[in-house]
């Protein structure tokens, strides 16, 4: 408990202050309390747990895909089931697992790392979670009532249009997108406001932890990318339900336009998943090589540059549509450029590891796994960026291999590393390191066994999204290996779950800072109190916890009897004013319900847009209605 040392006052006042803090930040008990909770730790955990459940769901779908493809002419799944399953798998993994998981981690970690007590808009945060949950339930309601979408995770029209996909399947998909994008935009705006305005005093731009930088960039990408998918999914929905002609070629619409708009989102989307993972890696590497990260400015510049460049490459998903050559050359060049920014980061991490004093924790194992897998996946990305090569491997298992390498290697491995790294913070107990390393090796071997053969399958002409193939094609070996590998990955998943459950109850007590790490979250208790810090910390260095204890500085003067936090200036993080955050509230949930009624209803009857808007409007009024008596005292 470092931070309590320098407090001048008597222990009596001290205790009173703590009680006040406890009172004003605690969530009311009971069901209502649970539903109205707005603290970032709780909401973050809800995101993480829900998203993890969808990882399992998506994983089970993946196993079904692999079982079907294990043997030629397999009849385990028919074409309709297979198409539903791969669509649900891709959709679940991208929209219900990866993005929300990254957001949940950020909702949990960012306020702690910045040294504040909650995100800037706690109720919006809760609202975002409920909307995400509603969207996820909506999609799986479809899955369990035999209306699972079946047009692929990017649902190209005309196949996904009213003429070729009758029924409600694609509507479930498109509306689920609306839900998750609303949720993502809520988190993005609150993270931007939090990172800009609620950093610890002294945490000027050049002292922000790299993880927070990556979340800042990711949030901006969400802000600018999600509107595109909003438009793409609305094109589909309105063409399907109210008969517009946005993507209907017969009436002047254009199916290629949908592809442009979708990938204008879709490409940034993959970096939205990937960039937070870079932040995890930086944190883990810093803590476990026990030295300052090498090349902080270069890292920040690369992350920011990645964010910008990512908006200029979408066409590389459309090379086979036959674009003018000059355009192709541009998009090849732009796609390759992003290898430089990734390369710089890889080099900086290697440099840090090179000169550090490594501590081979399980988390660091995952970082090494990340480097191996991601670099390979990134290099196949460079192959795909070349138009001439892409027209051969596009829409084959080569691409499937590429994106699982970058998604699993680039995002999932760091995520697992992050679980091992921050589990002690979240639960107060360490995870078992030996099991963790075993977990790593199982996943690493299983992963490569599953996805490496897919490169070869792709070159041998195996197109993606086929529910079966003939035995004369020569694809058996690769496929059977991939299926075995997938089950090894699943075994790794089981080991992970066991480790979680055992460590949660019986793990070694961690203490505040088991890794002797550098950033503020490790100054809070493990698990953190609902107010995070008794006295908000001040950043006196880029690595504030590596500063000698006697030189650490804290903030006093915030009121403890209400949810007060400190707002600082954008660039230099100088204290600017105090801010009272709202308490627990049911309105986020009620508003989310109103929105859900509108969204879901409109799939079946367009008038629900109006009903939903009116209900939502009313709920917002309730949300913003001044609480009486109005508190005007400073």
């Amino acid at each position, binding site marked *: 408990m470092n931070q309590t040392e*320098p407090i*001048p006052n008597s222990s009596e006042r001290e205790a009173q202050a703590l009680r006040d803090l406890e009172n004003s930040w605690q969530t009311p008990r009971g069901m209502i309390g649970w539903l109205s909770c707005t603290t970032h730790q709780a909401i973050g955990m809800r995101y993480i747990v829900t998203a993890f459940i969808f990882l399992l769901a998506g994983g089970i779908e993946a196993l079904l895909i692999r079982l079907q493809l294990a043997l030629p002419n397999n009849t385990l799944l028919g074409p309709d089931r297979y198409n539903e399953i791969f669509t649900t798998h891709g959709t679940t993994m991208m929209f219900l697992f990866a993005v929300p998981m990254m957001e949940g981690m950020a909702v949990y970690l960012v306020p702690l790392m910045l040294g504040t007590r909650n995100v*800037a*808009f706690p109720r*919006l945060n809760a609202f975002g979670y409920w909307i995400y949950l509603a969207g996820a339930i909506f999609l799986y309601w479809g899955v369990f009532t035999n209306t699972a979408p079946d047009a692929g995770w990017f649902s190209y029209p005309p196949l996904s249009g009213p003429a070729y996909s009758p029924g409600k399947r694609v509507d479930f998909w498109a509306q689920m997108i609306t839900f998750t994008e609303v949720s993502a*935009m809520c988190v*993005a*705006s*609150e993270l*931007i*406001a*939090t990172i*800009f*305005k*609620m950093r610890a*005093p002294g945490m000027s731009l050049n002292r922000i932890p790299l993880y927070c930088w990556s979340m800042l960039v990711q949030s901006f990408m969400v*802000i*600018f990318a999600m509107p595109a998918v*909003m*438009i793409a999914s609305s094109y589909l929905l*309105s063409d399907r339900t109210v*008969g*517009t*002609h*946005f993507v*209907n070629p017969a*009436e*002047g*619409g*254009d199916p290629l*336009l949908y592809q*442009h*708009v979708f990938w*204008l989102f879709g490409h940034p989307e993959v970096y939205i998943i990937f960039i937070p993972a870079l932040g995890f890696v930086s944190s883990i590497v810093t803590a476990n090589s026990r030295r300052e990260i090498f090349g902080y400015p270069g890292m920040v510049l690369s992350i920011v540059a990645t964010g910008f460049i990512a908006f200029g490459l979408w066409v590389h998903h459309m090379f086979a549509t036959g674009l003018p050559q000059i355009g192709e050359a541009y998009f090849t060049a732009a796609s390759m450029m992003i290898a430089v920014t990734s390369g710089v980061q890889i080099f900086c991490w290697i440099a840090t590891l090179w000169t550090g004093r490594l501590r081979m924790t399980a988390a660091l194992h995952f970082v090494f796994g990340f480097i191996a897998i991601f670099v390979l996946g990134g290099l196949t990305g460079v192959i795909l960026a070349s138009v001439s090569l892409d027209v051969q491997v596009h829409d084959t298992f080569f691409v499937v291999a590429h994106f699982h390498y970058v998604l699993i290697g680039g995002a999932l491995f760091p995520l697992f590393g992050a679980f091992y790294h921050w589990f002690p913070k979240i639960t107060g107990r360490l995870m078992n390191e030996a099991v963790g390393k075993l977990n790593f090796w199982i996943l690493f071997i299983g992963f490569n066994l599953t996805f490496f053969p897919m490169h070869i399958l792709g070159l041998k002409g195996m197109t993606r999204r086929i529910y079966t193939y003939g035995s004369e094609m020569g694809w058996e070996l690769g496929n059977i290996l991939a299926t075995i590998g997938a089950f090894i990955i699943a075994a790794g998943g089981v080991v992970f779950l066991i480790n979680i459950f055992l460590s949660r109850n019986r793990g070694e007590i961690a203490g505040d800072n088991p890794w002797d790490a550098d950033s503020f979250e490790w100054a809070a208790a493990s698990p953190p109190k609902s107010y995070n810090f008794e*006295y908000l910390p*001040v950043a006196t260095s880029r690595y504030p916890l590596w500063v000698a204890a*006697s030189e650490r*500085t*804290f*903030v*006093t*003067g915030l009121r403890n009897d209400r949810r007060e936090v*400190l*707002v600082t*200036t954008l660039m230099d993080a100088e*204290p*600017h*004013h*105090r*801010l*009272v955050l709202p308490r627990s509230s049911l309105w986020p949930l009620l508003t989310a319900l109103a929105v859900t009624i509108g969204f879901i209803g409109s799939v079946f009857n367009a008038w629900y847009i109006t009903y939903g*808007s009116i209900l939502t*409007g009313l709920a*917002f009024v309730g949300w*913003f*209605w*001044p609480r009486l008596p*109005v508190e*005007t005292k*400073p």
Partner: protein
Amino acid sequence: MITQNMINVEHLEPSDISSQSPLWWGQVCIVAIEATMFSILMAAYFYVRLSVDVWPPAGDQFPHTLLPSIALLPLILSAFGSYWASQAAKKNDRTGMLLGMGLNIILATVFFVMRIIEWHSLNFNWQTDAQGSYVWAFLGLHSFDYVADLAFTIVLFFIVLSGRYAEKQRLGVHVDSVVWYFIVAIWIPIYVVIYWGPQIVETQ
């Protein structure tokens, strides 16, 4: 040692009505989202327009330009009402807020009535063809935002009128004006696109 290591922030204001407020940034994010959305839609409009020879498609009349052009006047003026209210909010001037918001609400309503009249006179709807889909989407989306923010302003107006408000609500007035400026500003390019767009790109 002890006092050295503490920063006391007791003297700081317990709230702030300016761009220093996190809420202001949140509102800027929402504006950025909407602006991106409309920009993409406008780009899409031209993409579709340029991929065919005849525009608007046979049968669609050119939208009128007179009424929508006149309507710009009350719209732009309403932004001044909004500005007035937000300045008054910073100074905690209740009358100023009420007058500013009142002006905003009245002018905004005038504009909206004019829009409805013009909208009504279109001889195509969203189901007619792609041009119809776009024009209706622009009008629909913008009207949605418009009505939502107008309703929000009206609610704020009554809260302020009731007198039971604090910094939070004043900040609300300030931030509401940010959104209103955006809604006014974004209409101008949309107006150009849907009323002048067909004429401009048509003559090749």
